[in-house]
Every structure is written in structure tokens, then in C-alpha cells.
């Protein structure tokens, strides 16, 4: 896919994307540094009370934090701008008079956004694990079933937990692409998914939704809770993937239709 490669070529030159990579690389290490300097514990977050006991707790704490607002922002900074920036720079005429069709350009831009999102997720996961191990070492982790998980198993479960964030993250990528296409504004494309993410969290937090909260795109960010246990349960994970796929498919279908049918003025 030449469009994907071309878009990635463009993205890596953007200072915003470079800053994002640096934040993902250094952010977790900074959190570890701050936690190392203070005696207080982030007890309000799952595994927060264990950060000084096991190196596998910190990556899960960061995963919990990131799910609340970090992940939507992580992907919308790229995907929310990838279509609207062409409007902003007046580059659609040049871009769309190449050998590639509009549909190919759409697919390429979406794939490039998804690749960047997945890459940033992997980078943050790895540096978070590294930061945890530097902070507290590779010691057994008390899981959410109350039993201790051996370091090897804990490492696998931490990696798997971060991997569960991929589906809803890509759901937000699709949402950001949709807002970027429809609004033609990078402000809406970038801020929109973050605001919608917060609204969804607020809806879930106010309660009363019960099981209906499972259709929100933010709920799957918590599906890893079922994994870090002696006997994992996979129900929320399966549902989370399904919900993310439905959100993503709807957003992308609408975005594609709008882009292919719109007059570029």
C-alpha cells in the first residue's frame, strides 16, 4: 500500500507525532521516578497499592489511567487530523490528482492511523513494563483473584492486558477519522474523541446504565480486569472486541461514504 507508506513518511516528519512518541517512551519512566520519590500510593487505581511490591503492578496502573482519557487522545492526535489537515493545507487537489483513487487514499490514511496507534500502544506497554521492573523488580504479583502470580505468568498477563486495549483504541481511531472527515476541522477531530470518551465515562460513572454500559466504547478499556487472575474470565474481553468492531465499522463506513461523495471545495 503506497498510500500507507506515503502517509507514514509524512507523519514521522510532524513534530506533534514526534512529541507523542517521546511522551509514550518517557512518560511511564517519569511516573516510576515520581512514585519512587514519594511514599504515597495511587490506591484509587487498581494495583496502585502494589507498585512498590511488584514491578508488574506499575504497567497495570498506567494501563488503568490511560484507559480513562489517555488512549482516546493518543490516537486522535494522529487520526483526528489525518483527513482535516488536507483541508487545512489545501492539499486535496494535489493529493487526489495522483494515480490513487479516493477510496485508496481513504483506506491508506485509516491504515496509517491504525498502525501509528498500535505502534504507540506497543511502545507505551513496553516502557511501562520496563519502568515497573526498574521501580520494583521482577517479583510475584498479587492478582485480582487474591492469589500470587509468578513473575513469568505476570509478565505474560501484563502484555495480554495491554493488548486488550488495542480493539477499543482502534475503535477510537475510527471515531477520530470520522470526525476528521466530517468536520474538516482538526480541532474537532482531535478533541472530539477525547470529549466523547469523557462523556461515555461520565455516563458509566453516573451509574444506572448497568449492563447497557457495555455498549460504550470506553468500557472495553477495562476488559483486562478479567485476565489478571488465577482463573481468568474472558467474557468482557470478547464483548469488548465485539463492541469495538461494531463502533469501528460504523464510523469507518460513514466516514468512507462521506469522503467518497463529498465535493472538495
Amino acid at each position, binding site marked *: 500500500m*503506497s*498510500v500507507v*507508506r*506515503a502517509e507514514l*513518511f*509524512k507523519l514521522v*516528519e*510532524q*513534530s506533534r507525532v514526534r512529541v507523542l512518541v517521546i511522551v509514550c517512551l518517557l512518560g511511564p519512566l517519569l511516573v516510576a521516578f515520581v512514585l519512587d520519590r514519594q511514599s504515597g500510593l495511587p490506591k484509587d487505581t487498581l494495583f496502585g497499592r502494589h507498585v512498590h511490591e511488584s514491578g508488574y503492578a506499575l504497567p497495570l496502573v498506567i494501563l488503568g489511567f490511560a484507559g480513562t482519557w489517555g488512549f482516546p487522545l493518543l490516537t486522535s492526535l494522529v487520526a483526528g487530523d489525518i483527513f482535516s489537515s*488536507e483541508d487545512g*493545507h*489545501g*492539499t*486535496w*487537489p*494535489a*493529493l*487526489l*490528482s*495522483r*494515480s*490513487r483513487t479516493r477510496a485508496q*487514499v481513504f483506506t491508506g490514511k485509516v491504515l496509517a492511523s491504525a498502525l501509528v496507534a498500535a505502534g504507540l500502544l506497543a511502545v507505551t506497554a513496553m516502557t511501562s513494563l520496563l519502568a515497573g521492573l526498574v521501580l520494583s523488580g521482577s517479583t510475584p504479583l498479587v492478582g485480582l483473584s487474591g492469589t500470587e502470580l509468578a513473575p513469568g505468568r505476570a509478565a505474560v498477563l501484563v502484555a495480554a492486558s495491554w493488548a486488550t486495549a488495542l480493539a477499543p483504541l482502534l475503535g477510537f481511531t475510527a471515531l477520530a477519522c470520522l470526525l476528521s472527515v466530517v468536520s474538516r476541522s482538526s480541532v474537532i477531530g482531535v478533541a472530539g474523541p477525547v470529549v466523547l470518551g469523557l462523556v461515555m465515562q461520565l455516563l458509566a460513572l453516573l451509574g444506572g446504565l448497568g449492563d447497557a454500559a457495555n455498549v460504550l466504547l470506553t468500557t472495553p478499556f477495562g476488559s483486562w480486569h478479567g485476565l489478571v487472575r488465577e482463573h481468568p474470565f474472558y467474557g468482557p474481553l470478547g464483548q469488548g472486541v465485539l463492541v469495538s468492531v461494531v463502533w469501528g465499522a460504523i464510523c469507518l463506513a460513514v466516514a468512507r461514504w462521506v469522503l467518497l461523495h463529498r*465535493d*472538495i*471545495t
Partner: protein
Amino acid sequence: MSGVVGRGLSKLYGAVQALDEVDLDVPPGTVHGLLGPNGAGKSTLLRMMLGLVRPDQGTLEVGGVVAGFVEVPGAYPYLTGRQNLEFLARLDDAPGDVSTVLEQVDLAPRADTKVSGWSLGMRQRLAIAGALLRAPDILLLDEPANGLDVLAARALRELVAGLATEGLTVILSSHDLAEVDALCEDATVLVSGRVAWTGSIGALRARPGRHRMSTSDDARAFRLAPSALDVQMADGALLLHGDTAGVDAYVLALGREQIAVRSLRPASLALEDAFLELTR
């Protein structure tokens, strides 16, 4: 063949009729001017040729690869000039050589600096380079001399003239008559989305119905002008504007009044006058 043929092109933006039954004929290998005041529909027509805007009605046949820019010469400010072109080249099946087109538009010395610091004139040339990279059959330029100083505008004119001699079809939209006059063989004048006039530049200057006349007594002749004919006194002659029958009647009337018509010939207007008259 790589010309452009449009028939009955219409486009409505909300309540604004951007184009209304526009016909356009651009034979291959010619340089065609699109003239008209702002908002006349020139950019909409160019966007249709690039496939960015679909006509509500009508057909547009574009014979060959089209490239160019509309309204603003778009570029990614965070990339260098060369990177901008390299990005576009990645999307082409058989792109031209980036260094060659940079030379062509005289941007090679500044090619490796970020576009964010570039002047409008440099961006215009970069946009042209981007279009040339596509090896187009038809090149669209929208107000290309906008923001260029005299020297840059002349350099651009020479570039376009050179491209035209190589057989490229060029469609140049402009409100600047001097530019169109210097470059184009043919022109189409758009006013409020309609074709007000189309044909060669020469014919636009010498539109029928305008005559220059001198008589034995211009002052008396002027007083005798019939109301059907627009007659003006101008630098030692009379300028007549009206149909042939009206001119004939006037000449006969002058004869009856013992005023001799010494010369009567079609008047060639300054292009600007012709244009102003069309767009009035």
C-alpha cells in the same frame, strides 16, 4: 487527444448557482484562459476537471491526466519542498523526477528548507512542480500570478509558455488580463456561473458592433446621434456601439445632413474594455 470538452455543466452550492449550463471547449495543446471576476465559477470549473467536485448536470470529458492547483497552492508546511514532492511521487505510478521538476520551476536552491517559511510565490511554483511531477496532459493553474512580484510573474509566464510549446494543454484561470493576454490563444469569460463569451483572444478584442468613425464635422455628427446607437466622442473620432443596421442608418442620416463620413472601421478595443463590458 487531451483536450477538455464540457457540455451544460451546472453546479448548485446551497442557494448559489456556481455554474449554470456552462459549455467549454479546450482543444489539445492550447493555452486557454478562464476569465471572470471573483465568484464567477472559475474555480468550481477547475475543481470539476480535477474530479474534486461533481457536476449536478452536464458532462465533462477530460482527455488525459489532469493535474494542477485550485485557489491555494497547497503544501505541507512541516515538510521541505523536496519532501512535499517526494510524498506526491509516492502516490504516482510513474512519477517524474523530483530534482528535474524542482529545476524546472527554479526552486532547486531552496528545495531542502521547510515550506512553512516560504513565500506565496515559492509555494505557487512548488504547486506547479507537484503538478508537473504527475506528467500531466492537462495542467490547471488557478490565479498562478497571485502574490508574485513582477520578475517572478514573468518567470512563471516563460515557464508556462515553454510547457505549452512542448504540447501540454494549459488551462489558466485568472482575473489578470495581461497574464491571459500574454499566454493564452483562447479564452472563456465566466460571469455569475455563465459563459459570457468564448473564443480567441483576438476576437475578444475586436468584437463586432464597435466602430470608429471620423467625419467632416464630428461635433455636429455627435449631436445628431440617434438614441438606438451608443456614440461617444474620443480622441478626435467617434466611437460607435450598436448593431450594423443602426450604424447604417446613422451614416445615411449624416449624409442627408451634409456631413461626410471620412472613415469607418471596426474598432479593436483594449482587452480590458472588452472584459469590463462583458462582466458589467
